[in-house]
């Protein structure tokens, strides 16, 4: 098994470079757009983690994104301080995913039916939230507001100081830190035996089961972890947009994140992140004009990627880079062979 198939190791050099770029970006650019791109990247990372490594495709991952956002909005309106709502925005989606996941995985439902069930779950939430207009649908002080959603809740504040709320530049840094931390968490999971078993399940589920691993429990666990990250992304998105609407649960949102992940690349962590940032940027550009619809571009892209480069852009480039590297090594020095044996060939790791 080559390195890109298993977890791959963290490249601290690249990680520090990315951190530096994120740190210094506000000096040269307005942070409004980069903030939402980072949030989308986190959302894509959450799906890329479970789809790319555990082989579990959730067709309706927007359910947990939206649940995180709604949980935060409802909780912060009732509590007035944002630390507990932020944690709840991760816990509620995680628990929901654990329940749904346990139902599916312990029921030994195949991947196609998993697609149907995850899709239906997000549709139920979309239909329900769209119908919650009026005084009957109130949680504490928060009106769910039907199709118009919940506007005007308090944004994140410094923990313990409700009067110091964050917006603009601090929100950007919160999102950047969240993305980097979640990336490290994913790397950490993949480096541990838990992550290796997940990859094993993706490669051969029956064999993993025969080796004595409780496959259903592993799948349920990674589904919950992924949903918690999606919920965090949803919570940050709610802070950025300062409104939550049922559209966060929509099929369009579910399709979008899936396209970001598959275009960026399955089986990598950086692929979904870059895919979300690049395609999210394209979406914002396309939003400024009315000639070409965003769904037209996304749809065409999804077809092309599934038919042409089913691995996604980043792994394809990595392989191309690796084979170029190999050829030039062979041409220029025999030492290249030895170096490769030591695991130093470029591009094999992320």
């Amino acid at each position, binding site marked *: 098994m080559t390195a890109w198939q298993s977890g791959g190791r963290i490249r601290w050099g690249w990680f520090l470079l990315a951190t530096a770029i994120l740190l210094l970006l506000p000096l040269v650019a307005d942070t409004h757009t980069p903030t939402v791109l980072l949030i989308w990247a986190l959302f894509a990372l959450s799906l890329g983690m479970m789809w790319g490594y555990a082989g579990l495709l959730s067709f309706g991952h927007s359910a947990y994104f939206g649940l995180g956002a709604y949980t935060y909005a409802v909780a912060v309106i009732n509590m007035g301080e944002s630390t507990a709502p932020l944690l709840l925005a991760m816990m509620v989606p995680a628990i929901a995913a654990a329940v749904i996941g346990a139902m599916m995985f312990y029921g030994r439902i195949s991947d196609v039916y998993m697609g149907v069930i995850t899709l239906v779950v997000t549709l139920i939430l979309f239909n329900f939230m769209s119908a919650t207009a009026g005084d009957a649908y109130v949680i504490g002080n928060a009106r769910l507001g039907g199709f118009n959603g919940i506007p005007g809740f308090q944004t994140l504040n410094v923990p313990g100081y409700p009067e110091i709320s964050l917006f603009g530049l601090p929100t950007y840094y919160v999102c950047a830190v969240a993305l980097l931390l979640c990336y490290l968490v994913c790397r950490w999971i993949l480096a541990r035996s838990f992550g290796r078993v997940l990859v094993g399940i993706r490669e051969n589920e029956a064999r993993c089961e025969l080796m004595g691993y409780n496959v259903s429990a592993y799948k349920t666990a990674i589904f919950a972890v992924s949903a918690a990250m999606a919920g965090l992304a949803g919570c940050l998105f709610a802070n950025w947009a300062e409104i939550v609407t049922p559209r966060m649960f929509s099929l369009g949102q579910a399709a979008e994140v*899936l396209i970001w992940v598959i275009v960026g690349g399955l089986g990598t962590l950086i692929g979904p992140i870059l895919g979300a940032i690049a395609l999210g940027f394209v979406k914002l550009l396309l939003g400024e004009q009315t000639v070409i619809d965003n*769904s037209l571009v996304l749809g065409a892209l999804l*077809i092309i990627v599934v038919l042409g480069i089913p691995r996604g852009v980043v792994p394809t480039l990595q392989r191309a880079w690796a084979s170029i590297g190999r050829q030039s090594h062979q041409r220029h020095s025999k030492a290249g062979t030895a170096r490769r044996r030591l695991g130093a060939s470029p591009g094999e790791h992320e």
Partner: protein
Amino acid sequence: MDYAGVVGLEILYMIAFLALTSAGLAIVFGMMRVINLAHGEFVMLGGYTTIACHNAGVNVYFAMLVVAPVVVGIVGLVVERTIIRFLYGRMIDTMLATWGLSLLLIGLVTLIFGSTAVSIPAPISGYRFGEYQMGGYNLFIILVTAALVVATWAVLKFTRAGLIARGAMQGAEVVSSLGYDPRKVYMVTFTAGAALSGLAGGVLAPLTGLLPSSGGAYIAKAFITVITGGAAVISGTLSSAVIFGTVNQLVSFAVHPVIGEIAMLALAIVLLRLMPKGITGRFFRDST
């Protein structure tokens, strides 16, 4: 008494609606094990074709019963040749590619027709049922669906093409060893499924206004009807349409239409969990 009759008619209409909108998807899924996520957009295209023909002065029944299936059938043929045929046996990839197709078609229709709602008036006026005013067109939809189910059953049961199709469903290798090209069978099946979706869209067009995103309203219901029904095309689709149609309308009348819809979706999840192979995978195994 009148009220019970109204509820009964509404249930019947909902069952017909579910069977009609899932027919195309059921044939493609049952015969080819392909889940076409662009199904809703095929229905939507049928609706737009009907409306465009009506506006051009074509008789509305001719438009919905002939033009819409032909146009969408051709679209289906093109899609099968350019996308689906490369992905046979890769179920998840097919779902992804057809989801892309769905977005692509929404974008294209938005480009051509704009994103405002279009509609045509129902060609059959309403009638009085006791003290209630009913839409007469609903009855027409029930009749069309009944005719469609009988016709599909007859084609599958009594014609040579139907025999080959049923054979391909049960064992594609056997059919191909008998000299029938399975690729050709699949191509015809997908085209026929698309044509049925176009017919459904055409027939439903006068009832509901159309938007480029209207397909989304059909896909979820069609999806759960077909998957819950299982692989047998007719008995599966009918049995799940009856279950979901009844639950949806009863809860809708008792509580609220949205809750009815949610009850139907939740029931679908429960049924899938209990019977992952669908109703016909469990109960009517030898049916078509």
